[in-house]
């Protein structure tokens, strides 16, 4: 492979060198199972606790004992919704979520529907924002769980989590947020936002894959979904992924320390990328409101299809995506873009660039140079563009 310009940081990020270095001893010399009671296990055990403290502090949790380590953001989302829905089944079987959640939330809800639960899917507005008033009016006497994504993964738009949290708390409904794209990118405060359950995942902020966490506010009723040993306060069984958890702790600590400065840097790069694309390419449309996490750019190019854009970008060594990597084998247009009211044609021509800490201004310049001829080449190949030009004549 020659030059690679990686602009898909919302899909995953590389593990930062300091984090990797901090993890390595726990694959080797300090491999002991932290649940073991001999002194040889005391170091990994202590480090596990340390990681818990770091995560708690990063999201403003009242105590480290409210942090539970899991194997993925998907597991955290599954556990939060399924666990809370079944634990509170005596109150009711109604769940409120949105139509543009990650599939980890949507598929969990779909599965719960097959168990007799009822789910309300709220629609965002055309700028990709959920209206808190819609959440309020959807609440019923039998509503047990509200789940709203913190930062939408395709659009990058920040949701009104504080307002929704206030509503949920005042109505006595458990509030979960999938904050996988938010944590360590924008300020997150579980206490201030009245969040009961929050999912986060290490690989979205320069930590390792295969390790994540669920914040469970003390007193929130939730059943386990994985059964076995007594790890994680008897709530999530399975031998601890010690190196992964330690990596998560380090990554979140480094991420928080540089969050503000990095957000400012990324916003500048993003502005340059957006301005360059919008000025250099006709019939392009920027999607999502400006209240967004830094680095995410979602743009639709009319008359062409995104996968072919990605193929041609790939030939230039540029990695971008057309939405969620988890769903890249699907032939369907993005459910997120359809939810904000885009047509199939427009949704099919949408590309997401997500900038990260290893992107430089020269990466942005490179993309701005490579992209316009790619779009032009595909438009010259497109029967829709032909029809459009003929209609104009």
């Amino acid at each position: 492979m020659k030059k690679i310009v990686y602009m898909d940081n919302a899909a995953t990020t590389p593990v930062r060198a300091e984090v990797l270095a901090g993890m390595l001893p726990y694959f080797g010399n300090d491999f002991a199972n932290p649940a073991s009671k001999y002194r040889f296990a005391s170091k990994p055990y202590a480090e596990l606790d340390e990681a818990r403290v770091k995560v708690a502090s990063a999201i403003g949790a009242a105590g480290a004992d409210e942090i539970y380590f899991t194997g993925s953001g998907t597991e955290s989302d599954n556990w939060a919704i399924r666990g809370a829905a079944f634990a509170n089944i005596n109150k009711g079987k109604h769940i409120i979520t949105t139509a543009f959640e990650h599939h980890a939330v949507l598929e969990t809800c779909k599965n719960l529907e097959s168990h007799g639960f009822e789910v309300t899917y709220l629609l965002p507005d055309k700028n990709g924002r959920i209206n808190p008033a819609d959440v309020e009016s959807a609440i019923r006497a039998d509503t047990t769980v509200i789940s709203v994504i913190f930062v939408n993964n395709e659009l990058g738009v920040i949701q009104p989590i504080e307002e929704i949290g206030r509503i949920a708390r005042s109505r006595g409904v458990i509030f979960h947020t999938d904050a996988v794209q938010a944590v360590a990118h924008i300020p997150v405060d579980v206490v201030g936002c009245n969040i009961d359950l929050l999912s986060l995942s290490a690989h979205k902020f320069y930590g390792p894959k295969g390790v994540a966490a669920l914040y469970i506010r003390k007193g929130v009723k939730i059943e386990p979904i994985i059964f076995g040993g007594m790890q994680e306060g008897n709530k999530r069984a399975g031998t601890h992924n010690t190196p992964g958890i330690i990596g998560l702790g380090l990554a979140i600590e480094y991420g928080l320390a540089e969050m503000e400065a990095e957000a400012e840097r990324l916003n500048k790069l993003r502005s340059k990328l957006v301005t360059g694309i919008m000025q250099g390419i006709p019939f392009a449309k920027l999607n999502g409101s400006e209240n967004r996490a830094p680095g995410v750019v979602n743009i639709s190019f009319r008359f062409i299809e995104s996968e072919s854009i990605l193929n041609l970008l790939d030939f230039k060594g540029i990695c971008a995506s057309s939405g969620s990597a988890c769903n890249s084998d699907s032939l369907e247009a993005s459910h997120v873009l359809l939810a904000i009211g885009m047509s199939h044609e427009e949704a099919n021509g949408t590309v997401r660039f997500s900038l990260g800490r290893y992107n430089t201004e020269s990466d942005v310049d490179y993309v701005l140079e490579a992209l316009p001829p790619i779009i032009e080449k595909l438009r010259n190949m497109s029967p829709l563009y032909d029809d459009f030009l003929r209609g104009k004549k």
Partner: protein
Amino acid sequence: MYSNKVLEHIDKPRNVGEIENASGVGTVGNARCGDIMRMYLSIEDNVITDAKFKTFGCGAAIATSSAATEMVIGKTVQEALKITNQNVMEALDGLPAPKVHCSCLAEEALHAALWDYSQKQGIFLEGLKPPDKG
């Protein structure tokens, strides 16, 4: 992941464009499914002398259109009618399972263009059915 042949066709598609006063033109697919193919044929004395395409769609849709136009040039109408989506896939060293439908679309686009030709000429072509109105 795509085969090297598919990637090569995406990078350098053959026969992109249109033919003025084509002997036959066929358009299949729709934007909802994410693929539209338009194929143009020049036919002289029952032989396809030129073929061009315009495609809106994924990389596989571009590659199958490109390969199909390449395959039909020089063939008689009857020979072209025998080309199946399987032949197109073989020419590309295969397609990932979710993309097999692109090869079907290429076959349909070819048939639609031949149907248009047969209608314009007022001739009957054995084995050719009118294209589905998508």
